[in-house]
């Protein structure tokens, strides 16, 4: 484009200012990417939830247990195909900072309900035959450099306390990039053998699959009605609703992240808008010359917008590069605290889109001001 040389010459005339402005776009985009992946990780449960899965918890709260005997009754409800159950273990591996979620599972039904979490058959077979066996998610295994056959001690203050020892029989992988690979599973039989008598036969929650997702509301209603007026009433909800409610326990993450993101980009508009305004003001005489020699008002607006846009695009591109480098490091730092941190192309495209929009917006007011410049007045000021 024959005008590109003019645009480039204009934006590079004050190099320090250009670097700082580009830097603010890049930093804003990196921050946006950080916020987006954290928000995404918090919402991951809802996003990866199976449309055909329901979760049944104690109506009072998830920390209240429900009887294992409900399983058969749930299975008898028309439309339910598989039921499995889990307990939260809440143990500590070596140090408290080494957090990862540990679940007691029912090996007979786990893979039927969670088919997207893949364990090789030979490893699964070993696990089934090993009362102290455990399966770890690939990310957790990698984090602690575990290999199959390792003996893994986990301390707990619950269930009578003490150290529980497990044999790592297998490692599971998720079918999709966003699947949670941080969990640690071990057998219900081993768990029940060691827990106090008072809570034997009590599970944390059921997860079930239904034949037709459209039947989910009816089935949820039927389950809750089945156990209504019992000592352990239930609350059945879709897996995504369950995950969303779980996230709500941390507060309104969505609003918090949205607020920070909005403040960041609003500040960016002010900073770049001010920079563009100063840049235009410094060039009043030059813009007047452009107009005098025949450049129309639209051309002048085009120049200012193109400069703002170019700065935004360069800043966003650097921001994308930095995000691609830094987000995996963030993922490692937060490993275990959140499900896998995934920077999706969609997030980046959205971030770049906002940056470009911000760039255009920041150039708009100075551009309109430049358009409205009266040549005779501007030349008089030179």
């Amino acid at each position, binding site marked *: 484009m*024959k*005008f590109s*040389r*003019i645009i480039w*010459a*204009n934006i*590079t*005339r004050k190099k320090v200012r250009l670097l700082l402005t580009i830097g603010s776009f890049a930093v804003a985009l990196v921050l946006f990417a950080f916020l987006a992946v954290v928000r995404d990780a918090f919402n991951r449960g809802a996003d990866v939830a199976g449309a055909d899965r329901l979760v049944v918890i104690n109506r009072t709260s998830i920390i209240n247990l429900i009887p294992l005997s409900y399983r058969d009754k749930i299975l008898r409800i028309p439309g339910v195909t598989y039921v499995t159950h889990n307990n939260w273990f809440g143990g500590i591996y070596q140090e408290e900072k080494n957090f990862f979620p540990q679940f007691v599972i029912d090996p007979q039904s786990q893979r039927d309900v969670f088919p997207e979490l893949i364990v090789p058959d030979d490893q699964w077979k070993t696990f089934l035959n090993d009362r102290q066996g455990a399966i770890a998610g690939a990310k957790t295994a990698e984090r602690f450099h575990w290999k199959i056959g390792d003996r893994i001690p986990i301390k707990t203050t619950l269930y009578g306390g003490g150290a529980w020892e497990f044999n790592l029989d297998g490692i599971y992988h998720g079918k999709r990039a966003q699947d949670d690979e941080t969990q640690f599973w071990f057998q219900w039989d081993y768990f029940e053998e060691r827990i106090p008598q008072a809570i034997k036969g009590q599970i944390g929650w059921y997860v079930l699959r239904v034949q037709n997702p459209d039947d989910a509301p009816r089935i949820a209603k039927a389950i809750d009605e089945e156990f209504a007026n019992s000592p352990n009433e239930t609350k059945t909800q879709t897996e995504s609703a369950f995950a969303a409610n779980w996230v709500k326990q941390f507060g309104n993450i969505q609003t918090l992240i949205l607020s920070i993101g909005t403040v960041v980009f609003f500040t960016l508009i002010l900073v770049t808008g001010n920079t563009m305004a100063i840049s235009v003001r410094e060039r009043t*005489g*030059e813009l*007047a*010359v*452009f*107009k*005098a*020699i*025949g*450049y*129309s*008002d639209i051309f002048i607006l085009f120049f200012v917008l193109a400069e703002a846009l170019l700065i935004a695009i360069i800043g966003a591109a650097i921001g994308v590069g930095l995000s691609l480098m830094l987000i995996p490091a963030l993922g490692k730092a937060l490993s275990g605290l959140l499900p896998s941190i995934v920077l999706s192309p969609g997030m980046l495209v959205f971030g770049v889109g906002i940056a470009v929009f911000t760039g255009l917006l920041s150039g708009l007011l100075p551009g309109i001001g430049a358009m409205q410049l009266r*040549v*005779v007045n501007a*030349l008089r000021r*030179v």
Partner: protein
Amino acid sequence: MVKVDGSTSSGLIQVRDLDKTYRRAGEDIHVLQGLNLDVSKGEFIAFMGPSGSGKTTLLNLLGGLDVPTRGSITVAGDEITHMSAGKLTEWRARHVGFVFQMYNLIPVLTAFQNVELPLLLTKLSKAERRSHVETALSVVGLADRMHHFPRQLSGGQEQRVTIARAIVSDPTFLLCDEPTGDLDRKSADEIMALIEELVGTHHKTVLMVTHDPVVAARANTTLHLEKGVLVEGKNLPHSVPAGGVA
């Protein structure tokens, strides 16, 4: 031939009953009053007059940078006083070459790129633009400085680049506002020699505002502006009727 009485019906530039009034602090300031002017092709006219006499205002009106309060300006058959802002911009690009006192070059562009600016608005190819720019820079004697930035040129050379930019698109006429005002005498002489060459050799029409009688003396005709009224000749009468003199 230059006439200031409005009696001629032909000519390249015709100005009729031109008024320009500014309103400042609630008061009307009549900068130009009932001004008439006829300029033929190839004329070189110098406008002189005290500060505030309306010289630059007249130049701005002739160049389509400002609009009159009353009256008309016709250039090569186009009446510009009633053109829209957009049309006027297009008209300026085709018909007017501007030379400013402070050169007004774009500091981040080379001499070549500065001269090329008016041509970027045309449909000329890159090669054609290059050829035009090189010719214009040769005319002003700066073919060997085309890749220099304004800061690498002297004041006189900068003004030459401005002149090259003004002539590169072969406009109908040139408007020069104090073209030597910021130059030493030697450089001023060189610039004036160049303008004379443009008029004499290249048959350009030049309208120039100056404070300097030595510079004005090099024009074919000197017109004086006093209190918004145009008068012909170098000896300014103290009392001039509205509309100028024949």
